């Protein structure tokens, strides 16, 4: 029998029980939340179980929700089982005060640059990453620009002075 979202979810709940904190299907994509310290257990299980075979890490990124106190930053993994054509999204929420999570580079070599990008923009520190430094922004940048406390605009911009536009 072909693997479905329902089977995937029940396999995860059988294995991890309460560690699957919540599950949902926004826009038909199975989404689960797990504690940040269990991320590699869950991802490794999804990858290595022969009937699940989530062998492809499609995406790895972060989300900043400054209003959710104690769980401001989510690290989001998108996995794809190519043999079964089933996708899953895994979210791990972290407090802003301690954005550390285990690196997935041991499971997926492709996580290397994606974790560097997530570090670059959100400041999430991936423990065990072989080369965690900025990848897209200039090396001497002092902020993590996708965190919402930093303005998107460049502060050195001069031609947006209202005096030039009669405002």
């Amino acid at each position, binding site marked *: 029998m072909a693997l479905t979202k329902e089977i995937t979810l029940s396999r995860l709940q059988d294995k991890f029980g309460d560690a699957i904190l919540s599950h949902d299907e926004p826009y038909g994509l199975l989404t689960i939340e797990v504690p940040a310290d269990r991320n590699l257990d869950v991802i490794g299980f999804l990858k290595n179980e022969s009937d699940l075979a989530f062998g492809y890490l499609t995406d790895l990124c972060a989300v900043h929700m400054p209003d959710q106190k104690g769980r401001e930053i989510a690290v989001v993994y998108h996995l794809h089982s190519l043999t079964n054509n089933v996708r899953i999204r895994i979210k791990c929420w972290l407090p802003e005060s301690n954005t550390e999570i285990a690196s997935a580079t041991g499971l997926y070599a492709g996580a290397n640059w994606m974790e560097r990008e997530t570090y670059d923009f959100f400041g999430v520190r991936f423990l065990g990453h072989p080369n965690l430094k900025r990848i*897209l*922004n*200039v090396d001497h*940048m002092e*902020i993590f*620009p996708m965190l919402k406390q*930093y*303005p*998107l*605009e*460049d502060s*050195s*911009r*001069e*031609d*947006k002075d209202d005096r030039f536009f009669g405002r």
Partner: protein
Amino acid sequence: MSDLKMVEAPAGVEGQGFFATSLDSVIGLARANSIWPLPFATSCCGIEFMATMASNYDLARFGSERLSFSPRQADLLMVMGTIAKKMAPVLKHVYEQMAEPRWVISVGACASSGGIFDTYSVLQGIDRVIPVDVYVPGCPPRPEQIIDGIMKIQELVKNESLRRRNQPEYKALLASYGIE
């Protein structure tokens, strides 16, 4: 009789069999009509530049058909497109490799001011890292505008002192950018 249009001779003293003028204006004339541009094209303004170089607009009419893809043999640095902050040191390095005399034209809103990209990752105008002689506005500018910018550069080249690089103002300008 050929209807070929020749460049007008600079002001000078003419007599039978001789013509006397200043060395500055003769060299300026030669330089202005043989500017070797170095295209530094990063985005859509570069596409307009391709049209400018092609047969319809034909920058060769202004003596600039010979593009130089080495900064060492180029006279004019044409910066066309958005320059990310990560690209800024590369642009400065290219400018530093150019030999004197050198001119810079900033084509389009992004190169001149950052354009619509008012964001942490984009350089807000190339004049933050290198001195600019002529700005061409537009998003992107049409080839006619780029040609107008080149003609402005030609005017600068024609009327410039051969000792420009020795002027204290010029030295101060380069020093303000931290360029040797």
